[in-house]
């Protein structure tokens, strides 16, 4: 075994002779011979600038989704002005956590999708709706992971389906997708989901919940996340998409620069461990 870091794990040349790339009919033989490097091609191994949780919930006639504006570099709060909710078409929102540069890439391909589907002549055809956007993103994510080059994100797509029912669905860097009435990514899946499930215990129960209730739990969840998730921020954006049952129209409300309200930090003095000097 060769213990040089660049050749680690390779049979040593003295014993076995030089490694022959043609053995496995590898596609990258040419490349190796050309730049004379034995170092393999490497794709993204970890995210760099990251965004933390996105949380979302259905309610009777709509959905609500929230994400804060922080971009972290490791544990450093590197940016506090990153918008992680992206509006696609007229009635869909995409919330993205994970790598911010991949988020920006996704933002661009979604913009291209929007131009192709909505701006170019749409002679009375269908417009982009949330299931379309989700299917598209899940194909992109799965393709990237199959090429061993994933987009390092967890994504929530929120909007309405073709029957004007609330639609909420998840897709992540592995191409895994699922649907639920309450979805959260990252830390939110540990801290916010229990709160959201108090309100909506099972998927079908969202029809018993109105907008105010859902909004309150989302606000509470954002507060809990700000308390306990060290990568979260105080300022967040949230979007509400609701079906106005009187007019039959879909209303879109996008609120930016919302602050976490009602903070009470008295609990903090009782925190033990995690580097705290209290005993």
């Amino acid at each position: 075994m060769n213990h040089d870091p660049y050749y680690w794990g390779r049979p040593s040349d003295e014993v076995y002779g030089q490694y022959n790339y043609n053995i496995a009919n590898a596609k990258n033989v040419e490349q190796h011979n050309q730049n004379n490097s034995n170092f393999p091609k490497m794709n993204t191994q970890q995210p760099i600038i990251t965004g933390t949780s996105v949380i979302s919930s259905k309610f009777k006639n709509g959905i609500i989704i929230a994400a804060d504006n922080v971009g972290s570099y490791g544990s450093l709060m590197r940016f506090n002005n990153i918008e992680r909710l992206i509006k696609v078409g007229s009635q869909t929102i995409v919330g993205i956590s994970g790598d911010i540069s991949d988020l920006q890439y996704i933002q661009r391909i979604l913009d291209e999708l929007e131009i192709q589907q909505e701006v170019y002549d749409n002679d009375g055809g269908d417009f982009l709706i949330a299931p379309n956007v989700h299917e598209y993103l899940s194909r992109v994510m799965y393709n990237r992971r199959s090429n061993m080059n994933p987009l390092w994100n967890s994504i929530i797509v929120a909007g309405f389906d073709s029957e004007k029912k609330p639609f909420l669905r998840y897709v992540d860097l592995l191409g895994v997708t699922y649907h639920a009435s309450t979805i959260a990514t990252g830390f939110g899946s540990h801290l916010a989901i229990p709160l959201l499930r108090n309100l909506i215990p099972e998927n079908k129960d969202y029809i018993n919940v109105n907008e105010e209730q859902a909004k309150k739990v989302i606000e509470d969840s954002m507060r809990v996340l700000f308390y306990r998730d060290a990568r979260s921020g105080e300022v967040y954006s949230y979007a509400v998409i609701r079906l106005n049952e009187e007019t039959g129209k879909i209303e879109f409300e996008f609120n930016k620069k919302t602050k976490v309200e009602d903070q009470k930090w008295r609990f903090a003095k009782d925190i033990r461990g995690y580097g705290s000097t209290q005993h």
Partner: protein
Amino acid sequence: MKSTNIYLTSIGTGYDLSNSVFSPDGRNFQVEYAMKAVENGGTSIGIKCKDGIVLACEKIINSKLLVPGKNKRIQTVDRHLGVVYSGLLPDGRHFVNRCREESQSFKSIFKIPIPVPNLLDRIGLYVQNYTCYNSVRPFGIVGIIGGIDDNGSHLYMVEPSGSFWGYSGAATGKGRQIAKSELEKLKFDDLNIKDAIKQAARIISLAHEDNKDKDYELEISWCSKEFTNGKHEFIPIELLEEAKKFAEEDEGDEDEDEEEGEGEGEGEGEDTEMN
């Protein structure tokens, strides 16, 4: 074909048969013939005013079975860019697709929407290329491209030769002579976009006079900072109706004023199926 004396220098000399070959007096006949194809097409116009641009076209209805309000002729290239053209429709479709590719490619490199003059640099080059090779023919369209970018509103017209010019008011197609003389009367400096829409409807309706035996549908689109947020869109149905009414009333007035009033006779050629 028409009487030979019109084409004295081209017919029979051989210089008109092939693209990319000059005649001894320095003309490229294939490009000129492409222009002829355009001259038979339905009229298209563009108006640039201080707060935006308006595109309009006279869409000839070839069959009563065509669905009213569908089969749009004005197309959108990017959010801020619209195109209308006269001539061979499939050539126009290809032209628009190329415009879209160019603006997408610009955006993928520079991450900003393509400025209108940049698009025309690229598309002019592309159209010109179709005059240089034997294996292709020039575009049988004249395209009017309008849009808004950081430097304000722009209106351009691209010809089959690949040359393009910036205009305040542009017209092409069968009724272009009438349309041009009407456009020349407009005061572009203090024309606002809502008036421009009405004028567009009026001009298209006047330009249709020579082609009255065929029905047409009026299409108008606009691009305005104030009303469409810089986006290129078809005008709302109320505005279209208002503009049509304006055009109709104006036509009524003119009939009273001058009984004979005929424009330059351009439309006498054989009826082709082009529009």
